[in-house]
């Protein structure tokens, strides 16, 4: 069986678990537990190890989706998941500027570990106070518009939006493979 692994990473509450649940054909294997400390103000449960989802294409090919924990501190699971990935998506919550710094840290961590095609998915762009994509990019330290990865809007609860973001990521890969 040929497997394609995509890592979904980002801040706490950015929508990683929802993203995988929305598109997975199986019940997502989730390692959520009741959130403690400040995470609890955002959501009741948080991923502590990983989320896992699957999409079977045919008898020979399958897509695996791995969601990382979104804790502010480095987590050993980040490294384990990203090293297994063929590509990844960083989800950033556009209406929580207080999380951009941590988003930058996750993004830079992944970039320091692997050299893979990736995209940035902006979630909650319809919420009050959501920042424009260009300003989020600058907050993540991406100054050069022409050299930055694609930044797209994602509704993690909408299957067509999630599928479109995956297609965008795959197109990156196909361009790299040409």
């Amino acid at each position, binding site marked *: 069986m040929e497997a394609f692994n995509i890592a979904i990473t980002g801040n706490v509450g950015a929508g990683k678990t929802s993203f995988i649940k929305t598109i997975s054909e199986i019940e997502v294997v989730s390692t959520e537990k009741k959130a403690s400390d400040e995470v609890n103000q955002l959501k009741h449960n948080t991923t502590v190890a990983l989320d896992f989802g699957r999409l079977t294409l045919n008898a020979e090919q399958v897509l695996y989706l791995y969601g990382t924990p979104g804790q502010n501190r480095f987590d050993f699971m980040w490294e384990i998941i990203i090293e297994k990935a063929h590509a990844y998506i960083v989800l950033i919550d556009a209406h929580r500027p207080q999380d951009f710094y941590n988003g930058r840290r996750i993004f830079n961590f992944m970039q320091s570990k692997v050299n893979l095609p990736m995209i940035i998915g902006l979630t909650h762009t319809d919420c009050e106070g959501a920042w424009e994509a260009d300003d989020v990019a600058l907050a993540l330290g991406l100054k050069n518009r022409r050299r930055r990865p694609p930044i797209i809007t994602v509704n993690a609860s909408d299957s067509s939006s999630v599928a479109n973001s995956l297609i965008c990521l795959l197109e990156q*890969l196909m361009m790299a*493979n040409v």
Partner: protein
Amino acid sequence: MGISGSLQDFSLPEILQIIDNGSKSGRLSITSSLKGKALQNQGTNDLWFKNGNFVALSNPFKYNNLLSLIKKENIISSKNIVKLYSLEREISIPLGEYCLQQSLLSVERVNQLLENQLKEVYSLFELDDGWFFFDDADSNNQVSEPKESFPLMEMTGKKCDTLTISLQGMRSLSKLDNRLTEQMPEPNSGLIKLEDNLNCKLLPIEACLWDDANGKMSLKKIAQKTLFEIQDLQTTALRLILIGLLEEVPVSREEPQTYAAPSLERKLALSSTNSMVKTKSQGKVSNSLLGNLVDFLRNNF
């Protein structure tokens, strides 16, 4: 368009990074809250930027602030001061530049005026509570609220790059607030560079961190190597992280390398030209899998 928010959520160095990274022009209004601790900064201060560089500081409650500074210096006659005050409606170049042209001030004096403005900007780094609003200037160099041009009467005609301001502002900060200290890098963490080149002068402790920011050496190791206290290294690293020069990373298991790691933007450029997609444990991905996956997603969602 602009960005706005609370200084509790988004700190001044983070805002300045956006202005610097985006080479933005416009007005950054910083309004302290009554709970803010820096009493001398109560009210609103407007910082003006052109192409990412600081060019002026104005304050609605300190009208003609730059002229007041010039007056305080006692280097221009009263007659000329009166003349300068009357310029307001007709001046078409920055006040400092005008004074230079008229030989009223020397270049050194004008530079000193910029320094005085910058000292006021540095004090804003102490604000731990308040609001910010960055109003992008349009193509006519006007901001929108209220429709206003750059304040020539508050401009020296000199500029200072925003990264230098952030660096100096963070150095002058007497105490880091709780939100910032939560981000303190751990002794076992390493650092990586987020910039290829530096155009500002670093202090010795900052230079040590910069030199060893290759993701391979922990802060603890840097402390042993340099004899700087680990706490001082952590605090200095945090300041450099907050202004976007460095990033904290877990120390790589690989042996230290002697060359500087390429910046992340360079890595991104490299990744886009990488013709083979592979990871440490995964092999190449077949084009058949990619094509089938795209078709599957297009047809089923």
